[in-house]
């Protein structure tokens, strides 16, 4: 088990903390749940943060908007600035974009993008998806230990997962390697059919410039054991409890987090360009 301690932050309305905790622990991480009323100094003591899915503050105003201003986020902001690793999943990803921690072009902390209501109908969708690593693994500390182009199965479960931003911002995000994951089919081929929400650039995951903050919309922790899979792997494991309970698939992202905390990788700064939005 890594000596690093990971705090899973719980806001009022968060609902995926237990699955996330289990996935972190299965990856060997020393993990604890942190409630919104925790002593802020104890929150600052963690080495990394995971913001799980749910409906923080009932998604009032906008998904993630109120939580982005929660006192817990001051520890996350300071930690991210110090180079600590931050992983946001689903509602956690929405919070990271609303707080400006990703994509953080030009180092600004104002929101430069957001996850808007799904296209075309603006409705909640819960569906199995695959996401593909779309950057060089080393570009993001959490993915540095993963194979290039790795395909991870997940569950998309959201009403606001469509990456939306000014066209100039989207162009910069693409150019500067901020689109960490894109939706794809099971073979790893990106296509519009694989995108469950109309997300710009087919984006499923966004990384900041330093590569220490990753926001991913679909849930890898909900497809992190063989019995959860929707492919032949589950059929092959049928009849064997140990095989069914083997961590696999989405667990890769948490193993990446564990590897990054065990042997920190120096992540190159994102290429900066002048005159951007």
């Amino acid at each position, binding site marked *: 088990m890594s000596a690093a301690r990971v705090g899973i932050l719980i806001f009022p309305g968060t609902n995926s903390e237990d699955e996330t905790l289990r996935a972190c622990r299965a990856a060997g991480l020393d993990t604890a749940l942190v409630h919104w009323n925790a002593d802020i100094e104890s929150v600052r003591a963690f080495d990394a943060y995971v913001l799980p899915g749910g409906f923080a503050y009932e998604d009032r105003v906008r998904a993630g908007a109120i939580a982005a201003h929660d006192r817990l986020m001051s520890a996350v902001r300071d930690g991210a600035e110090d180079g600590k690793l931050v992983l946001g999943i689903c509602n956690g990803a929405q919070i990271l974009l609303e707080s400006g921690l990703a994509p953080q072009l030009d180092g600004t902390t104002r929101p430069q993008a957001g996850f808007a*209501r799904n296209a075309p109908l603006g409705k909640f969708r819960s569906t199995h998806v695959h996401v593909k690593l779309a950057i060089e693994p080393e570009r993001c500390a959490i993915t540095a230990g993963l194979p290039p182009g790795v395909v991870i199965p997940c569950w998309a479960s959201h009403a606001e997962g469509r990456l939306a931003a000014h066209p100039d911002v989207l162009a910069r995000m693409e150019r500067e390697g901020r689109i960490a994951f894109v939706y794809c089919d099971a073979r790893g081929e990106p296509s519009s059919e694989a995108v469950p929400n109309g997300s710009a650039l087919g984006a499923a995951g966004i990384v900041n410039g330093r590569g220490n903050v990753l926001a991913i919309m679909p849930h890898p922790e909900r497809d992190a054991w063989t019995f959860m899979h929707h492919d032949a792997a589950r059929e092959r494991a049928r009849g064997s409890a140990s095989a069914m309970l083997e961590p696999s698939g989405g667990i890769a992202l948490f193993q990446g987090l564990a590897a990054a905390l065990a042997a920190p990788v120096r992540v190159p700064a994102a290429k900066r360009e002048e005159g951007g939005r």
Partner: protein
Amino acid sequence: MIRCIEVSLAIPDNEARTALDTLRRLGITLSALDRSDLYRCEVDDEDAERLVATFSGLETVYNPNKHMLRVRESARPGAGEVWIDEITAGRADAAGGFVRVAGRTLGGVRSLERFTAWRLSVAPGRPAADDVVTAATETLLCNGAFQKALRA
């Protein structure tokens, strides 16, 4: 003609209360914050009156037990107000089809824009000044990356 239908809660609005508390924590001093849903419709003259009746019958939009519905005199934000809309959602034009809300076709409606309206007050009956509205808008009420804010 333009008709602007406003639907607001008659019961306490938890969302507005949460937003008010958050803005106060962020240093923006307000005495009250009210929220409503706005439907700005371009409608044929002869269908204008029917439009109100249609909205009154949309149970998922207007529940008379907890909502108030009124036709606004102005189709623009008033003092202390900001209207939020998604840039990418756009306007539901009726060209080639029908404008629908909550599964119902709105007869005679040529286009429809939906907004969330926030009304900021610094004292009872005193709308917030423009700079306060701007600060609240930019800090919390609008994510300019994919939303637009209409102000007075």
